[in-house]
């Protein structure tokens, strides 16, 4: 895909994740491919049920092996992860690849101190002494901006504020200098002023450690702040891919365009109603045929021969840019009217 000599650091090809449930098979991820270059941040945007979180749990191998079928390949730094042994994955988790979750309160163990939770990751992967792990935990807490780290290291998560808990979680994820950091909606539960702090922190730490980040969010505003490249997911598939600038300024897929034009921004004209996407996200138990967005797409009928409901549009990526849509370039130019918010600059 990328024609450069440099191998992508993480390469996912035709990933399919299917769960069997009582009601049938849920196709949570259905043929997803993407590459991630070292030291860059890829933003994955999608709504609930788009498959964005499932994809990333699968990368770490944290899916339930009994009810989940994973197909395709996940190659991290030349190593295939799909089908790798539990022992191999355990060595990588928290060490080479780490994850930050959305709700730090429920994601940290209420029964262990912050210091212990950070330290045990370090101990597990370096085999150091308890004392060394504790010192490392204090150092990490200091790094993520927790005041009085030598005191707070012995606190339990419930004694921390929301923002501090998220900082502690970041400290825990970065304790072994991972090369890949997956952040799953890390700021969604936070207030805007704290969210801004956390995103600044992540950007600083990325500069310092050169970590590759996959940043999952539903908020295009957050993407605009933190990502280099953007991947838009809908119904378990990638519908658009490109740099942040390309995707946000010149969306190629009706879903991306719809999201951008439905969001109220601080300079959206107040007397113009918002332009929502009709309908609801699809059921992955029984997803729509063809393009999964077609039942909600305003332009589906403009494509001739009912192609949108009949055939899955292919995602062709040229130089990291592409979208999966049957509309022609001319049609897009015609239909996608200016985005009221983003064009103000």
């Amino acid at each position, binding site marked *: 895909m990328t024609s450069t000599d440099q191998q992508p650091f993480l390469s996912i090809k035709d990933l399919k994740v299917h769960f069997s449930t009582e009601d049938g098979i849920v196709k949570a991820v259905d043929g997803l491919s993407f590459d991630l270059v070292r030291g860059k941040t890829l933003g994955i945007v999608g709504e609930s049920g788009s498959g964005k979180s499932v994809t990333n749990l699968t990368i770490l191998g944290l899916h339930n092996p009994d009810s989940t079928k994973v197909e395709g390949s996940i190659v991290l730094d030349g190593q295939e992860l799909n089908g790798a042994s539990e022992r191999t994955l355990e060595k990588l*988790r928290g060490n080479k690849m780490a*994850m930050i979750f959305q709700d730090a309160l429920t994601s940290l163990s209420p*029964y262990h101190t912050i210091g212990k939770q950070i330290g045990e990751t370090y101990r*597990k992967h370096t085999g150091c002494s308890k004392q060394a792990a504790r010192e490392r935990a204090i150092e990490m807490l200091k790094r993520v901006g927790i005041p009085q780290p030598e005191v707070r290291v012995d606190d339990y998560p*419930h004694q921390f504020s929301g923002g501090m808990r998220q900082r502690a979680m970041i400290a825990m994820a970065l304790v072994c200098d991972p090369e890949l950091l997956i952040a799953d909606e890390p700021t969604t539960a936070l207030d805007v002023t704290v969210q801004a702090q956390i995103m600044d922190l992540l950007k600083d730490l990325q500069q310092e450690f050169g970590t590759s980040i996959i940043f999952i969010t539903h908020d295009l505003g957050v993407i605009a702040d933190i990502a280099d490249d953007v991947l838009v997911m809908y119904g378990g598939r990638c519908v658009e891919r490109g740099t942040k600038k390309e995707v946000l300024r010149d969306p190629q897929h009706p879903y991306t365009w719809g999201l951008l034009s439905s969001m109220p921004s601080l300079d959206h004209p107040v007397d113009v109603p918002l332009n929502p996407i009709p309908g609801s996200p699809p059921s992955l138990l029984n997803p729509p045929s063809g393009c999964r967005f077609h039942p909600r797409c305003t332009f589906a009928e403009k494509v001739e021969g009912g192609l949108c409901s009949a055939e899955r549009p292919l995602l062709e990526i040229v130089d990291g840019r592409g979208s999966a849509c049957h509309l022609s370039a001319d049609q897009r130019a015609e239909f996608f009217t200016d985005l009221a918010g983003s064009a103000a600059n």
Partner: protein
Amino acid sequence: MLRFLVRRLLGAVITLLIISAVTFMLFYAVPRDPARIACGKLCTPETLELIRHNMGISDPMPVQFWHWLSGIFLGREYPGFGNCDAPCLGYSFVNREPVLATILDRFPTTFSLFLGSSVVFLVFGIGTGMLAALKQGKPTDKIASSASLVASSMQIYFVGTLALYVFVYQLQILDQPGYTPFSENPGAWFSGLLLPWLILALIFTANYTRMTRSQMVEQLQEDYVRTARAKGLSRPNVFFRFAWRGAMGPIVTIFGVDVGVLLGGGMITEKTFSIQGIGMLSLKSVVNNDLPMLLGVMVVTATFVVLANIVVDACYALIDPRIRLA
């Protein structure tokens, strides 16, 4: 922690006071002559009068209750019968003995029954429950779950009698159940209680299996368990150090209730195996209308339940640092 204990113990005293007052009222409100009943078959008018006098039946009920209550701290005298030193829970005119002496005499039996069966049902119940949670949805889980469902619908008098017949009388591999004090002969203590332990534990094991399984399954779906796995911790480590820690709380709570129930005497178990514990004592007191004795058993049982609850709450705080005791 100290504050917590002091506050809770104060609360416990009030609770026990209310329980005994209500029980006292209920028992003495029966429209029968308690003295006549206590006097028994060979009752002379003199004895009857003596019992009446000792019970203080002519006094109003609050005064009677006050006498009973002050007896706990000061002891009481029962002229013509004997002394009842503090703590005095009353005097059984049927047994011609202070109530507490009888209860203390029976207590080791019930305690032995409780101790042995708890060990068995905690080990097997929690163990099987964890195994089922670990192998969730697999045959092991299904077998454990259905077995525990069957076991929990069993009744002691049925399984117990059946087991007695098969193992003691037919196969003769187990001793006749009975209680021998541990200090006298540990071997006999063990062999005499083995069958009651196993039978009593069978039913409790089933409950603890199901509870442990459901708690563990719930905990394994918690976010922090996922985080622990994402850190690279191994499955067993996550299972025992994270999920089990969370599952412990509710199990401790239920155990606290069971402690109270078991120490109060398993009436049916003791009856089935003819073991003379607290359970049989209360059964006999009911049959004999021995009101002072019944009242004593009630208060002792209630004390166990209340104390067990305090211990449970303290344990809860040790397990979960979010709960602060003040």
